[in-house]
C-alpha cells in the first residue's frame, strides 16, 4: 500500500515531465495525457482512502521511506512520505478537484496553442501540492511549498505576452518568497531546537521546548502561511493572480494551493498549542483578513477579483479557526474542503461566463445571463448559496462551526473574534449576492467592443459543464455529509486532536445570529443591485469603496515603500558600487598614477640631473661605508 503513496505523486510528475519535454508531437493528445494521469492519481488516492478506512483509527498512518535525501552530519533530511487522515483529506481534495479542473480545462483552453504546456504545468502543480501534503518533514514540505509556488508562477504568467500577467506572476512568486523565508527560518529554528525537522520528533517533543522558541517557530510558520494563503499582510498577490487562466484560479487560487497555509498551521498544531502568543497572532491575522478580503470583494467589478477577495476572506475564516487551537482545527479543515468545492465551482462558473462573453470580466458588462447559460447559472447559484451559508448547504455547516468556535475562545477575544466572523458572514452574503445579481439578473448590459464584436453569450461545452455540475453537487452535500454524525470530526481527530469549547452563547443563538447577518447582507445587496439597474460605468463611490477597489491601498503602500524604495536603494547601491567601492580601488590606482607622475618629473631628461642623483648616491655610499667602519 505504501508504494501507492509514491505513485500518487509520480503520476502527475510523469505527466509534467512528458508534457513539458515532449515537444509539439504531443500537442494533440497532451491534454488527455494530463487529465488521465491526474485522474489516475485520484484513483490511487481513493484506493488508499478505502484502505485507511478499513483500518483502526489509531493505525491510519502510513509512512513510506523513499531514500535518504540530504544526509549531512547531524542533519538528516529524508524523502519520506506520511499519509494520515489529514493528508488523505487533502489528497482527495487535490486530486479530485484537480481532475475535474483538468477536464474543464480541456474545453476552456481548447483554442490555446500552448494547451499542452498548460496541462504540463497543471500536472506539475498537482505533483508539488501532493508532495506538500504528503511530506513527512518540514524540509520536504518546503520543496512542495515552493513547487506549488513555481507552478502558480508559471500558470499565472501563462499568457506571458500580456505584461500584466507576467508582472502578476512575478509578484505572486516574490510575495510567496517572503512567506517562504518564514518557513525556512522556522525549519532552522526547529533544527536548532529539536535537532530535527521531521514531523514526528518535532511535534511529539514540542512541549519540551521553551515557549519563546515555540512562539518564534509559530510566528515564522504564520508568516509562511500568510504568504501562501494570501493573508494580511502578504495578501496583495492574490488579486493580481487572477491574470491567470480561470481554471488556474479555481484550482490553485481557490481550492488547493492557497489553503496550504491552513494545512501548515493545522499540521503544526502541537507547536501552536504550546505557544498561545503565536496562536493569538494567527487568530488576529485570520480575523483581519476575513474582513479585509470581504471588503475588497464588495468593491470589485471584475468577477474574478471579487471572487479572489472572497477566497481571501474564506481562508481568513480557516486561519481564524486554525488559530483557535484544537477546538478549531477540524473545522478549519472542514471549511477548507467545502470551500474547495464551492469556490472551485464558483470560479469555474465565472470561467464559463467569461468563455461565453469573449473573456469579458467586468460584471457591469454582464447582466441577465441566467437565460443564456442556464447550467452555469444553476451551478453558480448553488455555489453561491453554499458560500453564504444557506442552511443545509456545505458552507452553512462549516462556517457556523467556526463562528461558534470563535465565540468559544472566551473572554474579550472571543467576543471580538466571533463578532468579526459574524460581520464577515454578513459582508459575504452582501458581496456574493452582488456578484450573483450583477451577473445573472437584471438587464443585459454588454456592448460591442471596439472591434464591433458583440458577445454572444452561450452555454459552455459539455466537457466544461460536467465538472461544474459535480462541484455544485459537492457544494450542496459535502457539508451535510461531513457534519451529520460528526463524521469528519472523528476522522481527523486522531491527527489534530479536538476539544469542545464552552461557548458563552449557545449554538442555536450563533446559528440564529448568522442567519440574521445573512439576511441583512442579502437584503442590502438586493436593495442596491437588485431593485435598481446597475450602471455600466462604476460610480465614484465612497472613500471606502474607492480604497477597497484598490485593495485597501495595500498595493499603493507596497509600491511606494517597497518598490520605489527598493528601486532607489538598488540604484543608489549601483552608484555606490561604481563610485565608492570601485572608486576606492580606482582612486588608489589614480593615486599611484599621480604619484608616479610626480616622481616621473624627477626624471627630467637632463643628464646633469641624473648625474646629481648619481653623485649623491655615491656620497651616500661613501657615508654608509664610513659609518659601517666606524661602528
Amino acid at each position: 500500500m505504501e508504494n501507492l503513496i509514491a505513485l500518487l505523486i509520480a503520476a502527475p510528475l510523469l505527466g509534467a515531465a512528458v508534457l513539458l519535454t515532449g515537444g509539439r508531437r504531443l500537442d494533440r493528445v497532451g491534454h488527455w495525457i494530463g487529465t488521465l494521469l491526474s485522474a489516475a492519481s485520484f484513483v490511487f488516492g481513493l484506493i488508499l482512502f478505502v484502505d485507511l478506512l478499513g483500518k483502526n483509527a489509531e493505525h491510519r498512518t502510513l509512512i513510506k521511506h523513499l531514500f535518504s535525501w540530504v544526509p549531512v552530519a547531524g542533519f538528516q533530511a529524508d524523502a519520506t512520505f506520511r499519509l494520515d487522515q489529514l493528508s488523505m483529506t487533502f489528497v482527495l481534495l487535490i486530486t479530485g478537484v484537480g481532475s475535474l479542473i483538468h477536464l474543464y480545462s480541456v474545453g476552456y483552453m481548447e483554442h490555446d496553442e500552448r494547451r499542452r504546456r498548460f496541462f504540463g504545468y497543471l500536472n506539475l502543480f498537482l505533483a508539488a501540492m501532493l508532495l506538500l501534503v504528503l511530506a513527512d518533514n518540514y524540509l520536504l514540505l518546503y520543496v512542495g511549498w515552493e513547487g506549488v509556488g513555481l507552478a502558480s508562477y508559471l500558470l499565472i504568467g501563462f499568457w506571458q505576452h500580456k505584461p500584466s500577467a507576467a508582472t502578476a506572476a512575478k509578484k505572486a512568486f516574490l510575495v510567496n518568497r517572503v512567506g517562504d523565508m518564514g518557513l525556512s527560518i522556522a525549519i532552522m529554528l526547529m533544527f536548532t531546537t529539536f535537532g530535527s525537522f521531521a514531523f514526528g520528533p518535532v511535534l511529539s517533543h514540542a512541549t519540551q521546548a521553551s515557549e519563546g522558541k515555540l512562539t518564534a517557530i509559530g510566528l515564522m510558520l504564520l508568516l509562511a502561511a500568510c504568504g501562501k494563503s494570501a493573508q494580511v499582510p502578504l495578501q496583495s498577490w492574490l488579486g493580481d493572480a487572477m491574470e491567470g487562466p480561470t481554471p488556474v484560479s479555481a484550482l490553485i487560487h481557490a481550492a488547493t494551493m492557497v489553503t496550504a497555509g491552513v494545512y501548515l498551521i493545522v499540521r503544526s498544531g502541537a507547536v501552536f498549542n504550546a505557544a498561545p502568543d503565536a496562536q493569538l497572532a494567527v487568530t488576529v491575522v485570520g480575523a483581519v483578513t476575513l474582513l479585509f478580503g470581504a471588503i475588497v470583494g464588495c468593491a470589485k467589478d471584475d468577477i474574478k477579483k471579487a471572487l479572489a477577495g472572497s477566497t481571501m476572506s474564506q481562508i481568513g475564516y480557516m486561519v481564524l479557526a486554525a488559530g483557535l487551537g484544537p477546538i478549531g482545527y477540524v473545522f478549519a479543515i472542514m471549511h477548507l474542503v467545502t470551500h474547495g468545492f464551492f469556490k472551485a465551482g464558483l470560479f469555474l462558473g465565472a470561467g464559463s461566463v467569461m468563455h461565453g462573453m469573449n473573456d469579458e470580466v467586468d460584471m457591469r458588462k454582464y447582466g441577465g445571463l441566467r437565460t443564456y447559460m442556464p447550467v452555469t447559472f444553476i451551478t453558480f447559484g448553488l455555489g453561491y448559496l453554499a458560500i453564504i451559508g444557506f442552511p443545509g448547504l456545505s458552507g452553512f455547516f462549516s462556517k457556523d462551526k467556526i463562528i461558534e468556535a470563535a465565540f468559544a475562545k472566551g473572554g474579550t477575544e472571543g467576543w471580538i473574534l466571533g463578532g468579526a466572523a459574524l460581520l464577515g458572514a454578513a459582508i459575504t452574503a452582501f458581496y456574493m449576492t452582488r456578484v450573483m445579481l450583477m451577473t445573472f439578473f437584471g438587464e443585459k448590459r454588454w456592448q460591442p467592443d471596439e472591434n464591433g464584436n458583440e458577445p454572444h453569450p452561450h452555454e459552455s461545452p459539455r466537457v466544461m459543464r460536467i465538472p461544474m455540475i459535480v462541484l455544485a453537487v459537492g457544494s450542496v452535500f459535502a457539508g451535510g455529509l461531513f457534519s451529520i454524525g460528526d463524521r469528519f470530526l472523528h476522522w481527523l481527530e486522531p491527527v489534530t486532536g479536538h476539544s469542545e469549547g464552552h461557548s458563552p452563547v449557545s449554538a442555536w443563538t450563533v446559528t440564529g445570529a448568522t442567519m440574521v447577518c445573512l439576511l441583512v447582507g442579502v437584503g442590502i445587496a438586493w436593495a442596491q443591485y437588485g431593485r435598481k439597474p446597475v450602471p455600466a460605468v462604476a460610480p465614484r463611490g465612497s472613500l471606502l469603496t474607492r480604497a477597497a477597489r484598490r485593495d485597501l491601498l495595500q498595493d499603493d503602500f507596497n509600491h511606494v515603500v517597497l518598490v520605489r524604495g527598493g528601486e532607489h536603494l538598488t540604484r543608489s547601491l549601483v552608484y555606490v558600487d561604481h563610485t565608492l567601492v570601485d572608486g576606492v580601488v580606482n582612486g588608489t590606482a589614480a593615486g599611484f598614477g599621480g604619484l608616479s607622475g610626480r616622481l616621473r618629473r624627477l626624471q627630467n631628461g637632463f643628464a646633469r640631473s641624473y648625474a646629481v642623483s648619481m653623485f649623491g648616491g655615491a656620497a651616500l655610499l661613501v657615508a654608509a661605508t664610513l659609518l659601517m667602519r666606524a661602528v
Partner: protein
Amino acid sequence: MSFPLLTATAALPAVGAVITAAVPAARRTAAKWLALLVSLATLALAVTVLVRFDPDGARYQLTESHAWIKDFGVRYELGVDGIAVALIALTALLIPFIILAGWNDADPLETGSRRWRPTQGFFALILAVEAMVLISFEATDVFVFYIFFEAMLIPMYFLIGGFGDRAHEHGEAAASTQRSYAAVKFLLYNLVGGLIMLAAVIGLYVVAGNFSLQEIAQARASGSLHMATNTERWLFLGFFFAFAVKAPLWPLHTWLPNAMQEATAPVAVLITAVVDKVGTFAMLRFCLQLFPEASKWATPAILVLSLISIVYGALLAVGQRDIKRLVAYASISHFGFIIMGIFAMTSQGQSGATLYMVNHGISTAALMLVAGFLISRRGSRLIADYGGVQKAAPVLAGTFLIGGLATLSLPGLAPFVSEFLVLVGTFARYPAIGVIATFGIVLAALYTLVLYQRTMTGPVKPEVSAMPDLRARELVVVAPLIVLLIFLGVYPKPVTDIVNPAVKQTMSDVHKTDPKPSVEAAK
C-alpha cells in the same frame, strides 16, 4: 610506484593545450575537436579519481610526493580529500560544456578576427586553465599551490582581454576598450591578492620550515609547531586576502562584474564556476587547516562581510541593465553564501558550502551559457533590448528559466540543498546572521524573475521575433546541465557522501563541534 593519476589528470589538459595551440592555422575544426576530446579524456580521468577515491579512507588519497626544490623544502606533493575530489569532478565536467558552448566564439569566420590562429589559442587557453585549476585542487604543498594559483591568471587574462564579448552598445571600439579594462582589472586585483599571499607563504616557510600542508597541519595539531597568536593572524590574513579576492568577497568584488561582462559567456562561466572556486576551496583547505585559531578569531568579521556580499550582491543584481553583469552580481551573492558556510564552523555549513561550490558551478553554467546563446542571437547584452523571447524561442526561454530558478535556489534543484545547509549551519551558531542571510533568497527571486520577465515575457520585440530556438549543439550543452541540476537537487547523496568525511576532518582541525539542539530527546 603506482600510476600518478592526479598528475595525469592535470597534465593531460596541459599537454592538450600545447598540442591544440600547435594545430596549423587552417585546421580550426581539428583544434576544436582536439580540445573537446582532451577535455572529455580529462573527464574520464577525473571520474577514475572519483571512483578510486574512498570516502571513508585516509584523509588524503592518491598522494604523490617528489622532492622538487630541496633548498627550500618544496615538494611536489599532490593528494585529494573529498572536497577536492568533488571540485575536480566539477571542473572536469564543466570544461567540455564550456568548450562546446564556445565552439564558434573564437572562429575567425564568425567573429571576423584577423588575429593569427584565434581558435587554436582560445581552446588551448581554456585547457591550460583547466590544467592549472586541477592542480590547484590537488596540491597539498603550499608552494605548488601558490604557483598554479597565480599562473592561472595568465591564460585567464588573455581569455578575457583577447576573446571578449563583442556586443557593446557603443560599437566594437568601445567593446575593445572595455575588454582590456576588464582584463587588466582582473589581473591587477588578483595579482595584488597573490602578492600578499606570497608574503604570507614566505612567512609560513620562515615559521614552519617547509611548505607541506600535511606536515604543517600535523605539527600544529600535535603542538610541535607553535605559532605566536599575532603571527598566525597575519599569515591567515595574507592567505585569506588572496582567496577573498578570487572568491570574491565584498568589498573586493568589483573585478568580477567587469570580467564576466566583457568575457564571452563560456569564459565567464570559466571564471565564476571554475576559477573562483579555487578561492573558496583554498579557504577550506589552507586557511582552516593551517591557521585554525586565527580562522576562529576572524570568523565574526568574515561572516559579516559574507553577509554583506549576499545582500549587496543581490541588491546590485536587481539594479543591473546588463544580463551578464546581473549574473555576475548574483554570483557575488552566492559566493557570500559559500564563504558564510565555510566560516560558520558547523558540519552543515561546511558541507553545504562544498556542495554549494559544485551546485553553483552547474547552475551558473546553465544560466550563463543560455544567456550567452541569447546574447549571441541578438548581439546585445542589455536587458532592455529583449522582450517576448519566450514566444520566439520557447526552449531557450525554458532552459533560461530553469537556470534562473536554480540561481534562486528553488527546492528540487541542486542549489537549494546547499543553500539551505549553509543557512541552517550558520543559523545554528549565529541566528541573527542566518536570519538576515535568508533575506537573500527573496532578493534572489527578485533579480531572477525581473530578468526573466523583462527578457522573455511581454510583447515580442521586432528584433526578437525571428530569433531561432536552441540549436542541437546548444541543447547538448544545456540539457545535461539541467538534468544534473535536477538530479543533484533530488538526490545529492553521492556528493554529500564524498564530502562529509572531509568536512568532519576540517571540523576537527579547527576544534569545533556542532551546537547541540536544546531539546536532546527529539533525536
